[in-house]
């Protein structure tokens, strides 16, 4: 089987953030323990697929996986190791952690469990902004949590940052970047806020109680980000992702490269043999099922059209762009044949550019990526 990424979902958190529309909610200890067991049954149900798998990455996402008890994590990863067929030498194994939930015991346990990367939700350097977002942590917790994971021996750390927040000034953003750089991570993800429907933050913005920065300020923040990243030796490799050389997230690259991935856990998505699957989002059903791995539905069947569209709109998220050679190898036709006109127009509009074998977003294309992606949808 192909090199595959493995995603494990942990749908619990201390408190739901104001902007969050993920499958995540607070839960009592008993439920969380039950869930840890169900995850293992889910993995067992996938034993055959896992056995045939070459694991290139594992990603424990959430929710707040750093809420898991040390034994739970060790036991979970043990199950993964027991079932996985082959474990690639460079395999990246990430856990998402939130400042305020990280303890030295846990960090040590993660190391024991074979986890080699921590992705920390820092978001902002200002306590007021963290409060606006409904985060449970404060600025100081970020500093403390980073120290803890470093002391436990983690050599690959990502910090998630958010820009375009209600009430956030350019200065706030610069200070956030500054604090992030001072913590010397290997990887940074900088997201411009997406106001998701139905979230408390969206309601506050809709009702006028909060105001988002205008497009101009949001883009100025993004421009500042690109500049600062360069100054601090980070290379941009995706619209919102930056890394020191060699520290690009292998797991996330897989999503944009159309590599297969297997999602374990409540509501987790999989992409296997060109099909997109999604596990049930019904927590009780998942907990009660003898074999929760059977509780999934097909979101999208495999088709050449889907592959074409996704190849374009996911591939172009990467700043290196898409390779015409690779396209031809995958689809058997020239990129020009499939999308010649769209590409010509987008180059004319200054949103795409050619660079040797590659077609990629221009600087302006990074700001208007959706406009570009739409062109490749039917």
């Amino acid at each position, binding site marked *: 089987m192909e090199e595959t990424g493995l995603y494990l979902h942990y749908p619990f958190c201390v408190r739901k953030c104001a902007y969050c529309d993920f499958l995540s909610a607070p839960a009592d200890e008993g439920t969380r323990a039950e869930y840890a067991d169900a995850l293992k049954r889910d993995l067992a149900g996938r034993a055959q697929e896992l056995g045939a798998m070459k694991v290139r990455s594992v990603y424990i996402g959430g929710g707040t996986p750093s809420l898991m008890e040390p034994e739970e994590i060790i036991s979970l990863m043990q199950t993964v190791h027991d079932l996985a067929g082959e474990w690639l030498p460079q395999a990246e194994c990430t856990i998402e952690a939130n400042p305020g939930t990280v303890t030295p015991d846990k960090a040590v346990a993660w190391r024991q469990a074979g986890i080699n990367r921590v992705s920390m939700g820092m978001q902002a350097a200002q306590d007021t902004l963290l409060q606006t977002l409904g985060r449970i942590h404060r600025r100081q917790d970020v500093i403390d949590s980073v120290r803890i994971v470093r002391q436990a021996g983690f050599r690959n750390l990502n910090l998630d940052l958010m820009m375009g927040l209600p009430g956030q000034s350019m200065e706030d953003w610069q200070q956030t970047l500054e604090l992030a750089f001072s913590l010397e991570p290997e990887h940074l993800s900088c997201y411009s806020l997406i106001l998701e429907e139905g979230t408390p933050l969206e309601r506050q913005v809709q009702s006028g109680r909060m105001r988002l920065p205008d*497009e101009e300020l949001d*883009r100025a923040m993004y421009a500042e980000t690109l500049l600062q990243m360069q100054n601090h030796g980070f290379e941009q490799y995706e619209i*919102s992702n930056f890394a020191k050389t060699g520290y690009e997230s292998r797991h996330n690259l897989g*999503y944009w490269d159309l590599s297969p991935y297997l999602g374990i856990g409540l*509501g987790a*998505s999989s992409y296997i043999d060109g099909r997109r699957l999604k596990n049930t989002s019904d927590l009780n059903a998942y907990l009660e099922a003898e074999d929760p791995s059977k509780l999934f539905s097909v979101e999208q069947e495999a088709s050449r059209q889907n592959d074409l*569209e996704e190849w374009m709109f*996911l591939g172009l998220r990467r700043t290196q762009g898409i390779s015409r050679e690779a396209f031809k190898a995958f689809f058997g036709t020239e990129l020009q044949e499939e999308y010649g006109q769209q590409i010509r127009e987008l180059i004319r509009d200054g949103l795409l550019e050619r660079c040797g074998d590659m077609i990629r977003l221009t600087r302006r294309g990074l*700001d*208007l990526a959706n406009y570009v992606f739409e062109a490749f949808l039917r």
Partner: protein
Amino acid sequence: MKQANIRNFSIIAHIDHGKSTLADRIIEKTGLLTAREMQDQVLDNMDLERERGITIKAQAVRLIYRAADGQEYILNLIDTPGHVDFNYEVSRSLAACEGALLVVDATQGIEAQTLANCYLALDHNLEILPVINKIDLIAADPDRVKTEIEDIIGLDTSEAPLISAKTGQNIDEVLEKIVTMLPPPEGDPEAPLQALIFDSLYDSYRGVIVFIRVKEGRIRKGMRIRFMAAGVEYDVVEAGYMGAGRLMPSEEGLEAGEVGYFTASIKEVAHTRVGDTVTGADRPAATALPGYKQVQSMVFCGMYPADGSKYPDLRDALDKMKLNDASLFFEAETSKALGFGFRCGFLGLLHMEIIEERLEREFNLDLVTTAPGVVYKVHKNNGEVVMLSNPADLPEPTEIEYMEEPIVKAEIMLPTEHIGGIMKLCQDRRGEYVGTEYIENTRALLTYKLPLNEIIYDFFDALKSRSRGYASFDYDLLGYERSTLVRLDILINREPVDALSFIVHESKAYERARRIVERLKDEIPRHLFEIPIQAAIGGKVIARETVKAMRKDVLAKCYGGDITRKKKLLEKQKEGKKRMRQIGNVEVPQAAFMSVLKFDEDDN
């Protein structure tokens, strides 16, 4: 039945004073069938079968009432449309009656439409029975309302029933008074036929069903009849009554004094105009009944299918609507911006809204409507006079000697405390003050001459909001007056958009221009490039806004769990753009065309 036992009446009222509730109560309290008809209906299954699928609107309903005197009476309740747009239809319905119930809300008293409808009824020499409704409400003050009716209209209210249509209180008294107070019809059954058309309805099985009041003579199956104004003849296939929510054919037909219907395999609804007189082809009446006039469209707008490929559907839908609504006018037109569509004419703005809503709801059409306008008279240098209903057809300024616009007389009934605000509103709309009449200390009737094009947009809403809902309003067309009018053209990215042009008084042009470009700026999404939006008169730009170039259109995150969802989002966004109209290289959403309709809303 003897004429002495027939009563033909309408119910007139200001909107929301309880007209339909009272009608419902009256129908409930009476029988729909006589004893003999009851038997017929049970036996006549064939008929039932034949009529399945047809629902007859209650244009008129025939009720059987056994009065206190022990006799059975036929009460024909003739419905009247309740809005100024349909004044002519109301007047024809009233002309079919001998009497009218004037329903007045005991908490509100007389309102503008109470007066307008009442005067209309008096014009037709109807006997008017005032009915005070809503006496169950705490705020009811029947004595005050009675005094008002006596003082303002001069009607005797000593016999006025005090009722609650809602609770059913004193409905019997209303029925009894209908018999004792309203006069029976007159007319000679042996005279040549004269029947007034007060409504018609298209039925695909029978053709047009014509609703009539027989004034003289009789009409029956097999008879050859002539529509006097339309000048066409038909053979009557069926004549009868409207009862029990369906048609009840009668072998004897209808005779002088009666209200009913007939059919004659008529396919052309245009032949059965409301107000026309039906007479016998073999023994015609010497004259037609008075009061016929051909309805004229007062308000015009362009209607386009949002999806250009639905043009044939829109045409079919308009054809079908026209079958039941002779006052609807339409003809094909083409717009550079909107493609193929129709210029449609209506009796008024409400009529337009009703048609628009029905097209969207009943025919499942998504429409783009251009700003409604009125008909202007354009006097050209060469002496020619053009009736202009589409701004795009305005001749070159050099060819125009002068223009005229329609003027109405508006009567506004309102609490005195709001006089100042409403007078300001009327002045803003270029109104010419005619007079104020005080009714008691607290209310007044304000009369203004107003240009029709100032009231067709949102005058009614503005009136309501400036009087906290208390002002009521009625208008009548006075005629045309000379006016300084200009055509405002809108340019998007320097391209004129014909569908956005409209005609406006010179003094209003600047302000409207500014508002409209502001609104368009908000409606038109940002593009890759900057888009100037300009308003111009004859090539001279008088207002400008700019839609800034798009700065951000990107989703920051797209990981494994997001892919299908984000793809759907992109597809939706793309789909939205497909539904937009392409003007030059600018994509304009449908809503932008509608936004010009609303440009006064923050006036209030």
